[in-house]
């Protein structure tokens, strides 16, 4: 299977521009599982780094997203900060990719969607024996929760999707290779999973 072949270099970007394409990644309402799966491309990371420069990402710890060619979004949006970051990514990334189940359909965090937010906060902060005097946190620093968790395509235009919880390293690698080669990514049987 070619996707496993770490020794084979990724095809050169279409038009062979001088500058390396920039890649940004972020986790919104996700668990970082998709990022872990990204790291599971293992030694193919060396190949990748020959072809891209990482911009904002947990890998660089850069806090602001610059002008980028590809942005990978893990997680859906559950609070106001998620929405703001997602919009910044959309503004700055030529190609925006939804990475994993939560970005695509809300995933696990969206399982709260059938319960009113107030009941949830009550249940967590008033009925927990460990938080007897807690109260619902309302520090201005804390991002405001949305009443529902939404997939990212309900907020911004998304160009490509990599399903999976998490998507396999092979699926992520395959999409990145296609994008860097200027092709529309295709995920065939075996690469396409929702679980």
């Amino acid at each position, binding site marked *: 299977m070619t996707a496993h072949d770490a020794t084979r270099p990724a095809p050169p970007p279409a038009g062979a521009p001088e500058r390396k394409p920039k890649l940004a990644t972020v986790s919104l309402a996700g668990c970082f599982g998709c990022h872990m799966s990204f790291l599971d491309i293992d030694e193919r990371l060396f190949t990748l780094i020959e072809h891209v420069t990482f911009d904002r990402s947990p890998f660089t710890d850069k806090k602001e997203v610059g002008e980028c060619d590809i942005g990978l979004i893990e997680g859906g949006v559950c609070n106001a900060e998620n929405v703001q970051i997602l919009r910044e990514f959309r503004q700055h990334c030529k190609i925006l990719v939804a990475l994993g189940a939560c970005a695509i359909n809300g995933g696990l965090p969206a399982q709260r969607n059938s319960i009113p937010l107030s009941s949830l906060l009550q249940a967590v902060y008033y009925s927990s024996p460990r938080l007897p005097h807690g109260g619902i946190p309302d520090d201005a620093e804390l991002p405001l929760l949305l009443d529902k968790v939404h997939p990212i395509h309900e907020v911004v235009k998304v160009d*490509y999707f990599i399903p999976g919880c998490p998507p396999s390293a092979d699926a992520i690698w395959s999409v990145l290779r296609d994008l860097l080669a200027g092709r529309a990514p295709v995920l065939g049987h075996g690469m396409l999973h929702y679980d």
Partner: protein
Amino acid sequence: MSKTFTLDDKRIPFEDGQTILQAALAASVYIPHLCYHPDLEPHGSCKLCTVKVGGRQTAACTLRAAEGMAVESDTGEINAQRLALVQMLFVEGNHFCPSCEQSGDCRLQATAYQLGMLSPHFDHFFPNRPVDASHPDFLLDFNRCILCSLCVRASREVDGKNVFALAGRGLKTHLIVNAPSGKLGDTDFGGADKAAHVCPVGVILPKRRGFAVPIGERTFDKSSIADYVASRHGKRGGEK
């Protein structure tokens, strides 16, 4: 010599009374379908089996095959419409595959794989549908119901029990259990019922089975639904 019709570029033999879908499956040719089961009367409701005959769209599970018919099925246009139907099914319910015991054995999921669904495209409804765990051996998770009515027909036609029904109209259509309490535990539903084994998704689930077969080793992890369905129908002349 048997009668035939053409399905895309293939010649399909049929017997009088067979529908397009029945004849295609008997010839090991897959047409996507969700509300059809070989042992039950066709329902013609999911529209996944939509094909074009003489330029008109029709359900392959309800239209009888006729000599010389020219049927289009595996075309870009029809598959795009099927994909949109599947996407609508995904957003209407709560289909959270990573936590679903049926993942990998689910026909909705497998059909979506087959059609190359990468995202649900539409806005999610996120409906509130509580589960029914009242039965000692079976769980009902209504979040995943696609209203195919297979359980309704199986219970009525085969089991002679009438445990399930579709209630409401249009967007409000939903599956109910025919008991004064509305609970499965208050019916005579049992594991030997046909209705316990026809749900194409993960609504009617046996308890204490869970993830006995791990994710990744399940039916549609191993083969595409097209290959699986076509081979089973073709060889055995009927699905389980």
